[in-house]
């Protein structure tokens, strides 16, 4: 079980797992040997709402950093998610087909989106955020959103 940084803003509590990297847009990236597993952060899933559909690029798809790796449709928005690494999709979470709500119920665990065989992990990792840095960005964003309401 990962440990978490937590921020409570207004009535919402957002968690950031400390065992992985992040993009500023709200994807997490967890290294597993030569592969990385990716998913939506707790903040992104909470702020986007219940997931209706999640379409992930199929296994075998070659990706460059920034290529669209998945599209998630929620009750509020459609989100195109840019790949945080270059490489090839080797696994797509089968739950995305039949029960994408797992993205909401377990964003850092069973709600993962895909596994990518990373082509240049060391270089790509340098552009990702450490948990504490993402936590700062996420908390600021959450506070700004709460201030608008």
């Amino acid at each position: 079980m990962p440990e978490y940084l937590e921020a409570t803003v207004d009535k919402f509590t957002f968690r950031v797992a400390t065992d992985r990297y992040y993009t500023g847009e709200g994807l997490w990236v967890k290294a597993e040997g030569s592969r990385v597993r990716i998913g939506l952060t707790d903040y992104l899933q909470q702020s986007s709402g219940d997931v209706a559909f999640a379409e992930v690029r199929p296994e075998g798809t070659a990706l460059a950093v920034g290529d669209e790796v998945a599209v998630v449709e929620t009750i509020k928005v459609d989100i195109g998610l840019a790949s945080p690494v270059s490489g090839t999709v080797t696994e797509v979470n089968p739950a995305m087909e039949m029960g994408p709500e797992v993205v909401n119920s377990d964003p850092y665990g069973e709600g993962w989106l895909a596994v990518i065989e990373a082509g240049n992990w060391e270089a790509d990792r340098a552009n990702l955020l450490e948990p504490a840095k993402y936590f700062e960005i996420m908390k600021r964003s959450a506070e700004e959103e709460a201030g608008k309401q």
Partner: protein
Amino acid sequence: MTDGQKVVIVPCSGIGKSYGTVSREAAYDLVDELRPESAQLVALSLLVLGDEAARAAVAASPAVTIDGCKLACATKMVRESGGTVAQDFAVLDVYRRHRDLKPQGIAELNEGGQKLARALAEEVADVVDGLTMPDGEGGEDA
């Protein structure tokens, strides 16, 4: 159910999202057009307030709830009011079965939202028919 008794329909009362609007449109379609003789609306807000007439209505007849999001306020409130939820519908689940009917708009639904509301209303009508047929009483809480 006894003759003349109507199934209670309790839709979402949320604001600001298309899915809540779909739940209410479906409820109106049902009680105004599809099953006016066998279904009646009860306002969720009245149950929240503890209104005696609303509580009596859900206590006397099986209820079908239509929730706009996973908070499931309608379902929870009927149960807390002493009612029996015969079937709970979630708009998102219905949309997953009708992906071509993407709801958009809040004050006024787009065509997809209107059609989704109608599809949902027809599913609820089937449940109402089951409850009002002889020996059709009961439900998941019964």
